[in-house]
């Protein structure tokens, strides 16, 4: 991405641009995953195989994050008796999201027609063929099916992330109902607002202000703040696990949690470097930032533990890794490597306090800290991106927007996401409650959801 363009202007154009206007996208340093779809109808450009290859690889990396990755990360943290339940909920929720995505999700988020909050058209992928393409941020294109797959994995993992706060007590059937409603009224609109041309947050100037467009390279707002806040709200409605803060609820296998952590890290590059939509230098920048912010965050969490009189722990290391990944998500292509290192460190320490001190004080039961890490880490990342983007701090920004204005925009975007996610989740959870009862019986909760909900044991040694 070259420097010196008027960002806000470029964006205004971009929102209505067809393939003809695509060269302008080269200057777009922000909201990386935007408005690719509208251009797809133009005369047939052909995807460069290198970019297509990278985007297919990136889609698979996000899948790797979900099924072995997140399922293991979350599953390892639960108790033995709920292991399969946790993994199955993650997997089945992802499957559900995929089916809904191709039916109407893609249309609601990236459809050819729409307003600031939602779009429509292309339902059931009408009109998409193997020759359809989607625009990137330069004058390149990628296969539209590939773009659809890539975005599909984002919807799938975001829903799965929410479940981290409600495992060990929420019914499988409730997860399914919740998933359908939540995707429809929370995820698709937010994805549209943030990533689609014409979207409310994509355009800048929110609420009649002259604020610039927000920066979110790979989904800090759409994925992490959204998932984190939704997780908190769902956990509050659902209530605490029986015996919470009384019984020992130690992770049944930190080994598996560490395996999951490694897979999440590897897969996250699909998320972050994939959000460049091409295998170019911007992807390279996103990659190096995702390496070093994460490395920094992993070590800083252990350091925070030491400074608080504890031993540096394996779970702390893993938690730091995730916190760093979350924080660098919006900043991936919007920061220099050393801005990313600082961002990772700061997010890690703040999440450490959120998870160890704040949660205990407030007493809510966010079982696997989906809010404490994705929610809080996402907010730190979103706001911090407004800072590290500045060229004076090594960021790739062109300096045309002051740090203050950018940070203000970032805060607005965070607040919009928080409110939308909270309200939508409330609705989705209560609908799930009305239909299924939401929570398993006491007996099932005590004996474990593996036996009670699925009729199996995770281990038969």
């Amino acid at each position: 991405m070259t420097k010196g363009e008027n960002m806000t202007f470029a964006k205004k154009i971009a929102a209505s641009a067809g393939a003809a206007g695509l060269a302008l996208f080269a200057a777009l340093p922000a909201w990386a995953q935007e408005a690719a779809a509208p251009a797809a109808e133009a005369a047939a450009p052909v995807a460069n195989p290198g970019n297509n290859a990278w985007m297919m690889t990136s889609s698979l990396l996000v899948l790797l994050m979900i099924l072995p990755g997140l399922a293991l990360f979350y599953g390892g943290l639960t108790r033995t008796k709920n292991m399969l339940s946790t993994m199955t909920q993650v997997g089945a929720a992802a499957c559900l999201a995929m089916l809904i995505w191709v039916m109407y999700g893609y249309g609601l988020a990236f459809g050819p027609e729409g307003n600031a909050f939602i779009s429509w058209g292309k339902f059931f992928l009408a009109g998409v063929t193997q020759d359809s393409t989607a625009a990137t941020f330069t004058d390149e294109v990628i296969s539209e099916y590939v773009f659809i797959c890539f975005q599909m994995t984002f919807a799938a993992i975001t829903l799965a992330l929410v479940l981290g706060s409600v495992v060990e007590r929420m019914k499988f059937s409730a997860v399914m109902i919740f998933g359908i409603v939540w995707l429809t009224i929370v995820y698709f609109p937010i994805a549209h607002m943030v990533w689609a041309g014409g979207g409310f947050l994509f355009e800048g100037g929110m609420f009649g202000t002259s604020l610039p467009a927000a920066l979110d390279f790979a989904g800090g707002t759409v994925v992490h703040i959204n998932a984190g806040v939704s997780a908190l709200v769902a956990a509050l409605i659902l209530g605490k696990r029986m015996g919470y803060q009384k019984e020992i609820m130690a992770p049944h296998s930190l080994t598996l949690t560490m395996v999951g952590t490694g897979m999440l890290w590897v897969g996250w590059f699909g998320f972050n470097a994939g959000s460049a939509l091409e295998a170019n230098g911007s992807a390279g920048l996103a990659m190096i930032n995702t390496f070093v912010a994460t490395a920094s965050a992993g070590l800083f969490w252990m350091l925070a533990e030491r400074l608080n009189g504890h031993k540096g722990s394996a779970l702390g290391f893993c938690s730091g890794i995730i916190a760093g990944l979350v924080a660098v998500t919006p900043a991936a292509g919007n920061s220099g490597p050393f801005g990313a290192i600082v961002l990772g460190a700061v997010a890690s320490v703040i999440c450490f306090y959120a998870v160890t001190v704040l949660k205990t004080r407030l007493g809510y039961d966010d079982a696997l800290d989906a809010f404490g890490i994705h929610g809080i880490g996402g907010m730190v990342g979103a706001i911090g991106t407004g800072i590290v983007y500045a060229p004076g701090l090594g960021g790739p920004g062109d300096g045309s927007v002051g740090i203050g204005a950018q940070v203000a925009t970032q805060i607005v975007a965070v607040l919009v996401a928080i409110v939308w996610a909270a309200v939508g989740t409330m609705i989705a959870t209560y609908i799930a409650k009305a239909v299924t009862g939401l929570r398993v019986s006491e007996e099932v909760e005590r004996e474990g959801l593996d036996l009670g909900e699925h009729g199996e044991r995770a281990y038969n040694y």
Partner: protein
Amino acid sequence: MKLILAIIKPFKLDEVREALTGLGIAGMTVTEVKGFGRQKGQTEIYRGAEYATNMVPKVKIELVCDDALAPRVVETLQQSAGTGSIGDGKIFVLDVGQAVRIRTGETGEAAL
């Protein structure tokens, strides 16, 4: 016959078994257990949730021998399992009415 039931520190098992073999003991049965007593367990912390485990991993030995040998078994056990530090464990002695070797049907001391 006596059933000697000893709860010891796990890392002492090999030493104890060798010492008992020296006495001519040909068999025993070992179980992994958790002990609750004066010795306190390590404190574990997972994301701020502290668990002060008061259950410490121990090994239980069950061993049947004839009455005559019992005092020497107890003594050998006490010596070989001891480290002098808290949590070394206990030895209990119970009476056994009958013993059978499943393979042969032998009973009494011949079964041991």
